């Protein structure tokens, strides 16, 4: 059972951060694990909702460097393990923690596009 994770992007009332555990990714930066993670991402039908390459489909893009629920290792792990309210299924019941960490490793290994904010049509 993973410990509770705090989102450090939240505003802390009174300026005081609530106590929280930490989750660290055992595969952080491991390229082979990222490759496994990409395969698991497809095998678990994540791509059916988040699109090929996790570029966004019915579910949000996971490779735009922007996150609804936080992009830290522990926060992404939580999103996958317990699901999220607007239609993200909880995978903790069928995926072992190593598998989830490999997906996290894959997602975090994707390059964040540089010109995200501006889309330009005129020269």
């Amino acid at each position, binding site marked *: 059972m993973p410990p509770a994770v705090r989102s450090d992007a939240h505003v802390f009332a009174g300026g005081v951060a609530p106590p929280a555990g930490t989750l660290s990714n055992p595969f952080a930066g491991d390229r082979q694990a990222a490759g*496994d993670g990409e395969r*698991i991402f*497809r*095998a*678990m*039908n*994540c791509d*059916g*909702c988040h*699109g*090929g390459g996790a*570029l*966004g*489909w*019915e*579910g*949000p*893009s996971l490779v*735009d460097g*922007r*996150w*609804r629920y936080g992009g830290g290792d522990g926060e992404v792990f939580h999103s996958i393990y317990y699901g999220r*309210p*607007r*239609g*993200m*299924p909880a995978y903790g019941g*069928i*995926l*072992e923690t*190593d*598998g989830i960490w*490999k997906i996290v490793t894959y997602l975090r290994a994707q390059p964040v*596009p540089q010109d*995200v*904010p501006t*889309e330009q*049509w005129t020269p």
Partner: protein
Amino acid sequence: MTWQPSTPRAIFSSLDAGVFMRPCRILLLLSLPWAGAQGQGRDDGQWTMPGKNYASTRYSTLTAITAANVARLRPVWSFSTGVLGGHEGQPLVVDGTMYVVTPFPNVLYAFDLAQEGYPLKWKYRPDVSATSVGIACCDAINRGAFYTGGKIVYNLLDGHTVAVDAVTGKELWKTQIADMTRGETTPMAPFVVKDRVIVGPSGGEFGIHGWAKALDLATGRLIWTAYNAGPDSAVLAGAAFKPFYDKGPELALKTWEGDAWQTGGVPVWGWLSYDPELDLLYFGTGNAAPYNAEQRPGDNKWASSVLARRPEDGALVWAYQFTPHENWDYDANAEMILVDLTIQGRLRKTLVHFDKNGFAYTLDRVTGEVLVAEPFTTVTWAKRVDRASGRPVVDTTRLTGASRGNVRDICPSLEGGKTPVAPAAYSPRTGLFYVATNNLCMDFEASAAAHIAGTPYIGASTPYHAGPGGHMGAFIAWDARVGRKVWEIREPYPVWSGSVATAGDVVFYGTLDGWFKAADARSGKVLWKFKVGSGVVGCPITYRGPDGKQYVAIYAGIGGDWFLLSGDVRSDDPADVRPPADFAPNLARHTSQGGIVWIFGL
């Protein structure tokens, strides 16, 4: 590896006879109003059901707005729904009130058309599970409501049907019909025949076991369930079942291998029609799952088919499969338009259907016999439809499957030669059908898919490109007696809006880049256009207001598949920034999400 995708399979033990009503052939000698069914007869100027009438012609006999004066049309009112999802479907107008259902969270608004500014009489805000937003394959859309007997009946995305009192806005009943844990959601508009509310699920991308259900209009109680695939007892194929081309028992079981039918998709998410004289309900079924067709050998009946059922007990009377062993996500959920046409000198009771597979079919709606089947857009997957067998002559080089690698240049794309989202209209004055079409082709690379309940069951990557000519869509006029295009208006983007035809000989449709247009029904000349603020994926209606004047209404609000394909049309979520569609990189230059109801008048 340590991860083991356990692939739990739904267990279907409920297929014992007790669950399914015996088809009992009671002849109901009710005489129902068939008025305006084909545009003949009296038109009360209202719009009470999605397709205008049971025949789904979307034709109005109102004549105040004509080809001669439509250029003077101007907006008289607009309303932001406050919701950004794709605004498919159409409003209803009954007794001086306009009813609007929004995409998730499925708010129902009732506007008082007799008051200046059309203030609300009431609004109804149901409690809808937000989980449905992720389980719905293709945006959190809704296709509208049905009015009958003082009730507004519609579906909530999370698998419920509700009936609301049309005068007070009070909820009368709410019934769970679908199961999101199996990937079922419910954006379609219910269809009411006599006291039966007919509903069906989406989920062709989630490996559901598709069905249609009938609820009791008075109470919401479930009356019958008819599956679209599986044993005859589940499909309700009994003694009454006489398909024109196929013979023998258990067709919807034997045309699948093993238990593939249990997760074979075959959803019901489109439009329904009814012929009171024949007492037959008609609807199309969706794709077979998964997209990787090698996982489901066989014809996969009754995927991609039209079914004719008795509304009373659901008994199947005939069925015809447009795309046997569907390989390309060619759902057949598009409308079935019921008109009587003279074909080769003989007046026939026909059913006209524009399929995703690119063929327009004119069927005998008594028997299911194919009378005409001709392509209305570029088709490469099949050469023609063989009249003797009713089957398409497939180009085997365009068959897909995980062992076939990347199969190129399949037309139409899986968005369809016409999307079922955009129902056609028929004018008895011109004898023509008015149809929103797409000119998109695709490459199709299939891969093995694992069925995990509540997640997509697909197994394909399918990039699109424009078909011959480079334009991606056209609004066309079609002669279904011979299967011929009469005129077309080319559009830069696929045309995703429904249409309406009127006795003033004008037709209306909208475009993805946000134009609402009126064209001359005879010549196809564009007579008027107005930029409505967001791309149009809804269906226009026309009605007579309490002041006696004719109005035209349409939703703006791009979405549905375009929410997925062209993710840069959304601007509401700073945490979700997507690239444009590679085949339509400029769409977001012309439109953004936003739900607006528009009313136009002279």
